[in-house]
């Protein structure tokens, strides 16, 4: 299945609703809702609430993360916001500030 790639220099100010995988390399301000996986690559800046299934974060996210599957914070990730997921991995080297709610 095709996926959506938000390129490195792109800035999206608004809402993104995807029924497929999303790879973010650029900047999103607003809201990101994906039905499938979300990969936030290093260098990406997301100032938005992110909703999705499996998520892998290596960039910067300022906003709440809600996942129906698992959330992985990679080394280098900077997350400020609450995470709601049934499974979570925070790698050594990831920055995280917020609540974790695994009672989904």
């Amino acid at each position, binding site marked *: 299945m*095709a*996926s*959506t*790639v*938000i*390129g*490195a*220099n*792109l*800035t*999206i*100010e*608004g*809402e*993104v*609703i*995807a*029924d*497929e*995988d*999303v790879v973010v*390399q*650029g900047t999103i301000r*607003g809201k990101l809702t994906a*039905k499938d996986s979300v990969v936030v690559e290093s*260098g990406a800046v997301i100032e938005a609430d992110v909703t999705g299934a499996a998520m892998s974060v290596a960039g910067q996210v300022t906003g709440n993360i809600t996942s129906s599957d698992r959330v992985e914070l990679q080394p280098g990730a900077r997350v400020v916001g609450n995470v709601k997921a049934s499974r979570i991995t925070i790698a050594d080297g990831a920055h995280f500030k917020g609540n974790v709610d695994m009672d989904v």
Partner: protein
Amino acid sequence: MANGATVIGRETRIRARVTGGQDFEIHGHLEGELTVGGEVNVGETATIAADVRGRRIVVRGAIKGDLSADEAIVLEEGARVVGDVRAPRVAIAQGALVRGYVETGNAGEAPRKAASTAARVLPTPIHRPAPAAAKPAPKAAAKAPAPPPPPSKPAAKGKPGARMSLAGGKAPPPVVPSLKKGTKAALTKKR
């Protein structure tokens, strides 16, 4: 990563102002505003309700909004455009649908609100700074696949103004970069 190519998949809907970036390919739905520094490729399944600005716009889908490009706009078969189309070069293929004002040539291009990266990519055709002066000169030369007009055929050397044969109407001012003798040698040596 130099290539900031963006692909918006078929199942994606965006309601936002989208700016910056290099090439932009869309197969889903976009509502809002789109200003990119590179090539905009609108797929067959794409539906856009926004004004689109880019260096080059190729359309195969549906757009409700004005199109404005620095180089060329190509409407392929399957394109459905309701809105104005403005670019130095416009190509409308058989089967494309257009409803709006079509204008070729540089006159009347609104100032681009693209992010600063767009300025780095290419200087706008009309106001091309003397390469010796501007810092982007080596970068612009490296990205020189599109000195002012025809992007497909480089032939950067000759007078670009002569290549643009417009049938009557106002011809754009000839875009002849003011290069000093020896600039090319200096540039290639610098790199």
